[in-house]
């Protein structure tokens, strides 16, 4: 009897290659790791299929899970059709094939599992634990964001409290860059919890195969619901199946049957099936002559087989060339061609200008109604504005040019800050720019809120991208008031956004408040 070649090594190698390719393509902005900043281009309006935090410096697309939570938590209070459509499309086209082949975090888990240690095998307990991700999906991805939306407080609960991909790809990557040293001020109990959780998951992945995918990932839970009917994936032909159970025994995840909601379509069961009942879905679309007729002669069978092999070879070459072309184009575009538009403060046309307030201490706070942290700290700024109204202190809040689908600032101010002594202005955005102009000119790199405290000569005394408490703000305002600026000549200073620089000025429009 002719010995059959084992399919396993070839398939595992190909799968690893596709995983690496997908990870590189979804994180093609390698320049971002070198500069410590995230990508700002329009490709981020499209969601990648796997779990890849959009705060990762390399990410060139949006995370589907994060975008879904933000869409559900939006105070726009409309159905998030765009996000639902994208996720539905991924579910029906790819199902959990994404988990097995395209997800960067899945690749990290696979590589960690290769470390040579004793492994915890699957059992009835792990099967029960695998339903926990559905609980997380319902509560953290759907219910909590919706509940907080009713309170006008956006809260992407899974991203905030659980997601290790955000901690690893976003926080760690950004914190490792010297330019982001000010971010260390923002670390606190939340980071401690998330960091400890991330470490636990990564260490656990060494011992438990795909720990995160099997027990925690809500995205996998969602994709798994469509696994049986997805276009791509693994299928089991019941007619050929003899229920020997070798596929289930071989599989490292908690399937009951090949292709069920736990199956990540890695394809490792294909090689162990004695009756060749397991195959890839979708093969008939490309190879209509997949089935060799039973009554065909030996010569006809050979001819069909040769024709099929030739077609497979041609398709492979075309696919490889296309994939290499796409990856090369992406890497060149994102790293060498794309340039974010410069911030030009001369384009402003409003009536507010920080130069008009020389002689007073100015507190500038950049915020947005879509930013829960910003809204949390606004009462502290309001209090400072009231208490220091007669003491040469001006508090001006600069809202983002857009609202990203959230509440308009005038409505929010009318509801929560009516009668406030703060000044409310709006920033300006140039078409094609990722950030608002004044925000960018004052050193903004995507973090909100951002606060600057200027002394009475317009020099930046304090600059932070962390949320501020009343006590912290009070300390900075009092320090600016107490500062002796008699020897400072603003005309001799460099205009910039570092402490000690003269704050740039720009004409900004006041927000029309509701009477």
């Amino acid at each position, binding site marked *: 009897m002719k010995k059959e070649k084992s399919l396993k090594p070839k398939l595992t190698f190909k799968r690893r290659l596709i995983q690496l390719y997908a990870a590189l393509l979804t994180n093609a902005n390698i320049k971002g790791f070198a500069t410590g900043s995230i990508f700002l281009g329009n490709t981020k309006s499209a969601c990648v299929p796997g779990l890849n935090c959009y705060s990762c410096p390399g990410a060139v697309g949006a995370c589907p899970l994060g975008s879904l939570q933000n869409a559900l938590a939006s105070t726009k209070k409309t159905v998030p059709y765009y996000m639902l459509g994208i996720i539905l499309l991924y579910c029906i086209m790819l199902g959990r094939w994404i988990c097995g082949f395209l997800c960067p975090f899945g690749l990290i888990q696979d590589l960690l599992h290769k470390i040579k*240690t004793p492994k915890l095998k699957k059992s009835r307990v792990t099967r029960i634990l695998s339903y926990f991700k559905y609980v997380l999906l319902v509560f953290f991805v759907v219910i909590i964001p919706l509940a907080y939306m009713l309170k006008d407080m956006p809260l992407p609960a899974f991203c905030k409290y659980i997601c290790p991909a955000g901690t690893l790809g976003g926080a760690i990557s950004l914190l490792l860059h010297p330019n982001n040293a000010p971010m260390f001020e923002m670390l606190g109990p939340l980071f401690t919890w998330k960091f400890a959780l991330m470490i636990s998951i990564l260490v656990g992945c060494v011992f438990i195969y795909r720990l995160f995918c099997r027990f925690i990932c809500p995205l996998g839970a969602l994709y798994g619901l469509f696994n049986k009917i997805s276009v791509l994936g693994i299928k089991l032909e019941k007619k050929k199946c003899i229920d020997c159970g070798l596929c289930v025994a071989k599989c490292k995840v908690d399937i009951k049957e090949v292709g069920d909601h736990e199956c990540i379509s890695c394809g490792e069961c294909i090689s162990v099936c004695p009756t060749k009942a397991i195959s890839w879905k979708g093969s008939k679309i490309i190879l209509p002559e997949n089935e060799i007729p039973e009554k065909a002669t030996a010569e006809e069978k050979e001819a069909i087989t040769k024709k099929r092999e030739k077609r497979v070879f041609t398709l492979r070459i075309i696919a490889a060339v296309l994939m290499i072309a796409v990856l090369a184009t992406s890497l060149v575009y994102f790293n060498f061609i794309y340039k974010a538009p410069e911030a030009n403060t001369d384009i402003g046309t409003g009536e507010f200008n920080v130069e008009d307030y020389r002689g007073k201490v100015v507190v500038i706070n950049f915020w947005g109604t879509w930013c829960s942290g910003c809204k949390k700290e606004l009462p502290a700024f309001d209090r400072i504005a009231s208490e220091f109204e007669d003491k040469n202190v001006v508090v001006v809040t600069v809202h983002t040019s857009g609202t990203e689908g959230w509440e308009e600032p005038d409505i929010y101010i009318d509801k929560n800050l009516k009668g406030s002594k703060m000044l409310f202005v709006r920033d300006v955005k140039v078409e094609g720019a990722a950030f608002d102009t004044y925000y960018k000119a004052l050193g903004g790199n995507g973090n909100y809120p951002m606060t600057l405290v200027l002394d009475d000569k317009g020099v930046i005394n304090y600059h932070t991208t962390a949320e501020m408490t009343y006590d912290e703000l009070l300390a900075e305002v009092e320090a600016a008031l107490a500062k002796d600026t008699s020897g400072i000549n603003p005309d001799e200073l460099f205009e910039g956004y570092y402490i000690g620089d003269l704050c740039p000025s720009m004409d900004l429009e006041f927000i029309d408040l509701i009477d």
Partner: protein
Amino acid sequence: MKTRLKIHNITAFITAALVIITGISLAACCIAIYVSGGDQPFSREAVGKYLKYVMIQGVATLELVIFGIVLKFAFPLDKEKLRAKPNILVTRKKLTEKLQKRDEILLRTDEKINREKKYRKKMSLGLASIITALGIASILFATLIDYSVSDINGYVIKVSVFAFSLAFIGGGLIYAYDILSKKSYKREIDALKSLLVIANSDVPAPEMPETKDRKPALVNLARVSIITVAVAFIVLGIFNGGMSDVLGKAVRICTECIGLG
């Protein structure tokens, strides 16, 4: 081969221990940095002071991982010799011999296995109870001790204790169930018998009844419907501003999402 296996296993256990220690150290380091920092919890000096210890452990772990990889390629294990899995290509005679052997083992050691199972059941239940009790005690301790939320150090300790105690409970339960789960030879024997049916040309394959398969048409209909709905949603979403909302959020660093508050 046995010596190689021993070396592989020892390497595996040491790597496992170091990975766990490095992981716990990283987490503890993070807590220590936060607790000790005072006004500036995560100052560069504090981070530098503690991280170097973790880096040393990390380097040791990495070296052991690399050693494990080199070991795997330089001194490979012959898995066929180590594993007694049924090979689809064995002859009928070998399959029959294997089956008989398994049946004999089962018959002779049935009593012994039952006795051992009862003993292990008691031991594991005891151990799991202790671990679970420890975990519950830790949670009660964390919640009952009077830490005020403004006391950040206490808050961090409380959260850490809570997290580790959850891990204890979870670990205890998993351990208990794993030990208790029945190791069944039945599935392996059934698999071997099925293979015997295929390998033995004298025994006809079981007859599968002919059924009309309507499933593909329904599945294709479902697919086409869902794809149509998905595309319609995407187009609708683009026109009502959903796409620009996604872009607006994605080009900003979500400090909440990455744990920076």
